[in-house]
């Protein structure tokens, strides 16, 4: 009788296997950003209310709609726009403490867990079940978190880089009227990202997956009063839906064929499926479709460049360091499944390599500093997919980690540049584009810290030894060469009738070219931004100055990490790389050893399904080639490009010649999509609307059902006399009938 509240005490499922290690406040890591979101959200609502009130009062004073433009304006004004009134309301002061605070706490907890975990040899993941989420028949989904080496690594990246970017945002966004709202979204994003990486089953991951999509949408369209920004948000959301559809199908297939959705169960049962069979291939392809959407690979990459409409720290956090890598994480997480489907894996690698090259070509001819970085991100994600597709999961994760460092650094650096230009242009009321590299030039004199950190990051992304990108990128390219020599398990697979070794050779070549182009366009970016004469304008030049400590500290930290990040995984078996072994952190190939329990499932699958592979031997020439390629790209840029000859946008056309035109217009892919997808869908919708909806369905509903219901209602309505007695009498008759039937029976 009494309704007892179900107890939701934590039940430790994997305690027996976990041995000595107990995760430290695992739930709190996830919860902290949510708490931050709640606090900042309240502040945001209150701030919006105050702003609304002020807007009303000011518009009634000025008698016009002038006030509206003040409150919601796009990045070109609002970053530094708010008048320095001297009094900062508490709704703007509180998030500056709360948002980075919760992130730092979460990072500290993650680090504490890391130290705890380093002490023990953890073979099985630790699963913490909090409550039963969807208990429906056979479908038993628990709200559970899973802590293993991979999710901890991702948590460290998310909270660590996230904390730095939150700190950067304090400086970058604190003058924006929507600052509390921004911080609330950012915290919410981190919460969902942590759910994504820490979830113990595909549905929980999907919650995070959708949540980060939502936050990405909210943040891309943060300055939603500008239609272009709102459209970019919508584009990201819709394109992601296509990927999510694939993820959902994959989940359904997994449930139908394996009868479970929790990682532990799924990967235990996965080997029961047919090796390279259609089922597991279909599952992997649909999972990959999800990953393609989220991680902006061909053909669903088009949303990411547009996503640069959001504030720059958002681009750094979401569209470079964390969310877009979720696809890579998904593939690594499901490595057991992908190992079962070699053809699908090869396709992943191929798509990644093609994307890497394709995006790199576009990056060559963009003038918007953030667009260059956006295409660079797509390209680097392509590297990661190429790696995980070839079965080099650790290389993919390694590149994910280093990329998070240097790409976040680059984005934040570009943010600092944009910020400085804004302030300058704002001071002189100039309306020039603060993101166009043709308006920059020679900034190293004005922004020394930014220049230094970005230069380090550029060296890292170009793959110059001994910066982070060198190790991770060369590991990927090296893996491709090894695979082409038939020394990877996937070399024995085949796709479209062509052997895996051949594919990998092609992938290696594609990636090498992409790496070369990467070095080139990054060199171009640095040259045009920081070297040559300054093109910002005479008046503006007076106002250029370095950014504040909240922005420079994250830059410095990230630059340091970009420098030393590669030493986490120095493999002494690889020639040339082994020269750096004395400086390696955590011993020989630390990341490989660390992540080994995560990918052991995939290795077991290969062991039982492929022929024994010969001993891997690393040749030294691929590494030399890679070094050469990176340095050559930079040198070529320095030689070919003449920043001193470059003019402002008015003086310099965006492109000269046909090839440049095609590259500048991004191979016309958006236009192509417009032709082959958007317009047909529009046409089809119109046809369906006029013929099926208005004609058929409305005809039936209105004409037959509607009229019929109306007639029925009009006739039956006569029974409704409005007299309570009559109703009572009818009820009594009903009671008599019921009682009578009881008695009769």
């Amino acid at each position, binding site marked *: 009788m009494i309704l007892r509240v179900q107890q939701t005490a934590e039940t430790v499922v994997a305690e027996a296997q976990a041995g000595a290690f107990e995760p430290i406040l695992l739930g709190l890591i996830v919860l902290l950003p949510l708490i931050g979101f709640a606090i900042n959200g309240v502040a945001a609502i209150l701030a919006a209310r105050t702003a609304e009130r002020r807007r009303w009062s000011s518009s009634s004073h000025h008698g016009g709609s002038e006030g509206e433009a003040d409150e919601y304006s796009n990045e070109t004004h609002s970053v530094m726009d708010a008048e320095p009134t001297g009094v900062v309301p508490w709704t703007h002061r509180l998030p500056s403490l709360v948002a980075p605070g919760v992130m730092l706490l979460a990072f500290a907890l993650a680090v504490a867990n890391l130290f705890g975990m380093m002490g023990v040899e953890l073979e099985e993941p630790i699963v913490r079940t909090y409550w039963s989420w969807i208990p429906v028949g056979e479908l038993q989904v628990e709200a559970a978190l899973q802590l293993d080496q991979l999710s901890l690594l991702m948590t460290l990246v998310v909270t660590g880089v996230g904390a730095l970017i939150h700190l950067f945002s304090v400086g970058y966004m604190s003058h924006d009227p929507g600052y509390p709202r921004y911080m609330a979204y950012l915290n919410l994003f981190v919460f969902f990202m942590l759910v994504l990486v820490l979830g113990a089953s595909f549905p929980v991951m999907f919650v995070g997956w959708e949540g980060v999509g939502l936050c990405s949408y909210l943040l891309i369209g943060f300055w939603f009063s500008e239609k272009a920004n709102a459209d970019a948000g919508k584009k990201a959301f819709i394109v992601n839906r296509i990927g999510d559809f694939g993820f959902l199908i994959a989940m359904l297939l997994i449930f139908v064929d394996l009868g479970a959705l929790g990682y532990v169960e799924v990967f235990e049962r996965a080997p029961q499926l047919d090796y390279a069979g259609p089922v597991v291939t279909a599952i992997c392809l649909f999972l990959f479709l999800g990953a393609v959407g989220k991680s902006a690979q061909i053909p669903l990459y088009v949303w990411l460049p547009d996503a640069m409409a959001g504030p720059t720290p958002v681009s750094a956090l979401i569209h470079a360091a964390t969310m877009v890598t979720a696809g890579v994480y998904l593939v690594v997480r499901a490595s057991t499944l992908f190992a079962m489907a070699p053809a699908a894996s090869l396709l992943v690698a191929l798509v990644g390599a093609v994307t890497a090259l394709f995006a790199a070509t576009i990056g060559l001819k963009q003038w918007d500093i953030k667009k260059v970085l956006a295409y660079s991100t797509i390209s680097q994600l392509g590297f990661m997919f190429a790696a995980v597709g070839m079965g080099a999961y650790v290389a993919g994760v390694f590149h994910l980690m280093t990329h998070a460092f240097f790409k976040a650094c680059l984005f934040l650096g570009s943010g600092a540049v944009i910020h400085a230009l804004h302030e300058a242009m704002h001071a002189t009321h100039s309306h020039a584009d603060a993101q166009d590299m043709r308006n920059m030039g020679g900034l190293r004199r004005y922004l020394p810290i930014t220049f230094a950190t970005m230069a380090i990051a550029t060296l890292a992304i170009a793959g110059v030894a001994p910066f982070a990108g060198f190790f991770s990128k060369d590991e990927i390219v090296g893996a491709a060469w090894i695979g082409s020599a038939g020394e990877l398990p996937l070399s024995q697979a085949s796709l479209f009738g062509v052997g895996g070794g051949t594919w990998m050779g092609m992938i290696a070549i594609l990636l090498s070219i992409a790496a070369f182009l990467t070095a080139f366009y990054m060199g171009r970016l640095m040259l045009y931004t920081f070297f040559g004469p300054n093109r910002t304008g005479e008046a503006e030049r007076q106002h250029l100055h370095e950014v504040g400590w909240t922005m420079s500290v994250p830059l410095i930290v990230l630059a340091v990490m970009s420098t030393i990040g590669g030493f986490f995984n120095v493999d002494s078996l690889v020639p040339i790389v082994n020269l750096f072994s004395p400086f390696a952190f955590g011993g020989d190939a630390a990341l490989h050893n660390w992540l080994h329990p995560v990918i052991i499932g995939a290795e077991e699958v290969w062991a039982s399904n492929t022929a024994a592979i010969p001993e891997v031997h690393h040749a030294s020439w691929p590494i030399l080639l890679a070094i050469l390629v990176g340095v050559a790209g930079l040198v070529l840029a320095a030689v070919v490009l003449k920043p001193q000859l470059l003019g402002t946008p008015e003086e310099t056309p965006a492109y000269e010649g046909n090839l440049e035109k095609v590259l500048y217009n991004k191979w016309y892919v958006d236009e192509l999509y417009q032709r082959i997808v958007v317009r047909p869908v529009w046409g089809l919708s119109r046809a369906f609307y006029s013929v099926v909806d208005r004609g058929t369905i409305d005809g039936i509903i209105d004409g037959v059902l509607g009229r019929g219901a109306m007639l029925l209602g009009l006739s039956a309505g006569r029974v409704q006399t*409005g*007299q309570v007695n009559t109703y009572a009498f009818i009820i*009594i008759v009903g009671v008599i009938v019921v009682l009578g039937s009881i008695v009769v029976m």
Partner: protein
Amino acid sequence: MLPLNAALFLSAILFAIGTAGVVVRRNAIILFMCIELMLNAANLAFVALSPYAGIDGQVIVFFVIAVAAAEAAVGLAIIIAVFRHAESVDIRNFSLLRW
């Protein structure tokens, strides 16, 4: 112990009288009182059965009384509000919302 059947029959009789009243009267307040009568008839059945079926019956009667009090407060307020418009509590005046 008292005869159970007698109490239950009394409950049935009161209930029947209440229903007859609800059907035949037009004064909203008297209708209301007839409904209270029916509620009480049900209460009597609960109380009469509680020695056999446990104290729960009496607890439910307690709830019924509380709900009846709430119902009376709101119902009478509605009647007063309607009276202000129609100057009458005849339920024929309250049939505007049909159809």
